[in-house]
């Protein structure tokens, strides 16, 4: 899937350093130019692991996971940052970052026009669009994310119960023991790994 | 994925000695 993507478009796949929308620090993402898709990279990094790979042993047990990610989480980071200026701005003045210059790749995403209205008010002046962060729209959009995440947690039988239980010993009937608000709390926590702290607090109130 | 670390990268007769099982 990735391999043929990189064949079709010059440097079809690039690992880029972009902002982590939760912490504001840098993180590695994978950008698939061909499919115009953003992937977050998480690494499985427990100590004292090695691999058998075919007829060889490889030291170091790192395993990188590329997971499709909604780029709006990253765009949201820039809109919230730009919101201080309290005015509508063109996109290319919002999404810029001298620490992570590759953020302009986000502007190449085809679906952008469809995505932005989830989190911004927009104005069109002389067929140019100007955007401004909208908190209530964003909270409504995040609520959808939380509901989708809850559905996925249930269908994937993720153990969300409040008491600490190692996932290695999940009980077969744990779904019954997990109450609805355990799911909401868990889903909110998971989404909060992708949004700034104060938005997470607003979302929790919302 | 092994539960231990062998701090080298080298060929190993995995097919002869390692029979994965659940």
């Amino acid at each position, binding site marked *: 899937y990735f391999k043929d993507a990189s064949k079709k478009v010059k440097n079809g796949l690039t690992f880029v350093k972009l902002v982590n929308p939760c912490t504001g620090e840098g993180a590695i993402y994978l950008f698939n130019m061909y499919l115009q898709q953003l992937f977050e990279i998480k690494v499985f990094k427990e100590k004292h692991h090695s691999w058998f790979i075919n007829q060889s042993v490889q030291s170091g047990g790192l395993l990188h996971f590329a997971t499709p990610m909604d780029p709006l989480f990253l765009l949201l980071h820039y809109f919230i940052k730009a919101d201080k200026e309290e005015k509508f701005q063109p996109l290319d003045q919002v999404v810029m970052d001298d620490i992570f210059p590759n953020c302009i790749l986000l502007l190449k995403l085809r679906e952008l026009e469809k995505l932005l209205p989830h989190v911004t008010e927009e104005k069109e002046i002389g067929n140019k669009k100007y955007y401004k962060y909208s908190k209530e729209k964003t909270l409504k959009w995040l609520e959808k994310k939380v509901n989708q995440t809850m559905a996925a947690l249930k269908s994937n039988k993720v153990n969300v119960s409040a008491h600490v239980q190692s996932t290695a010993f999940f009980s077969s009937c744990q779904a019954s023991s997990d109450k609805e608000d355990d799911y909401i709390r868990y889903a909110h926590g998971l989404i909060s790994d992708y949004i700034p702290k104060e938005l997470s607090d607003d979302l929790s109130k919302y | 994925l092994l539960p*231990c670390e062998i701090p080298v990268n080298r060929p*190993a007769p995995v097919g002869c000695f390692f029979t994965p099982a659940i």
Partner: protein
Amino acid sequence: MDLNMLERNNTGRCRLNSPVPAVCRKEPCVLGVDEAGRGPVLGPMVYAICYCPLSRLADLEALKVADSKTLSENERERLFAKMEEDRDFVGWALDVLSPNLISTSMLGRVKYNLNSLSHDTATGLVQYALDQGVKVTQVFVDTVGMPEKYQERLQQHFPGIEVTVKAKADALYPVVSAASICAKVARDQAVKNWQFVEKLQDLDTDYGSGYPNDPKTKAWLKKHVEPVFGFPQFVRFSWRTAQSILEKEAEDVMWEDLPTGDQEGLGRITSYFNEGSRTRPRLPHRFFQERGLEQT
């Protein structure tokens, strides 16, 4: 002796036994316990019991099952065949402990040493005979470890039976010598027909007696050591002989529970007090922590 159950899976343990002679369920019987292959670094260790009615002890003796150590491999096999013929009054049972079972017991996180494994195996075989309805009244055991402790443990386990644990029991009691023959025949056959689970190319089976001081065995071990996998499972990894070759020829392996110097991540205790200096990084959500997943 039909060992094909062992040949199908020689990585655990397997129990073999003769039919129980009817007379052994009626008359008081004497039972002997002995083992073969305790010392070798290769192959299984075999525990055996042999039992017959007290009234037929002379017939067993007449089989010339003298001290099994003085018999050659062929003589043992011939004697075993004769015991099989006399199955109307002689019964036997074996427990074949594979080298893999021995190694994993001795090297497990919770150590299960060879003496305990031996004692438990012997006890299990005597219990097996009782469960089969054999009227055991006397048990004679060749000693492993401290005879007194062993005797005491066995006596406690089998209060209604007169237990005698003695060194060189196989030279003193014909029924122990008979057990020793069963054990040795089984071990010799298992070693001779060992099915290597590892599909090795240049495998030679000229490994000598399997005893650590046998030059052929030592040469065979040196030749078949594999730097990542160690040895075929025919080898007892827990034997000093094997371990010293691994230390020299094989790669290092680190396990998480090895006491390593760098307990990184544990700040000095004072650092937990002045919270300010230690920017507590926001931990990823439980979902990721439980799966060992981190941001890159």
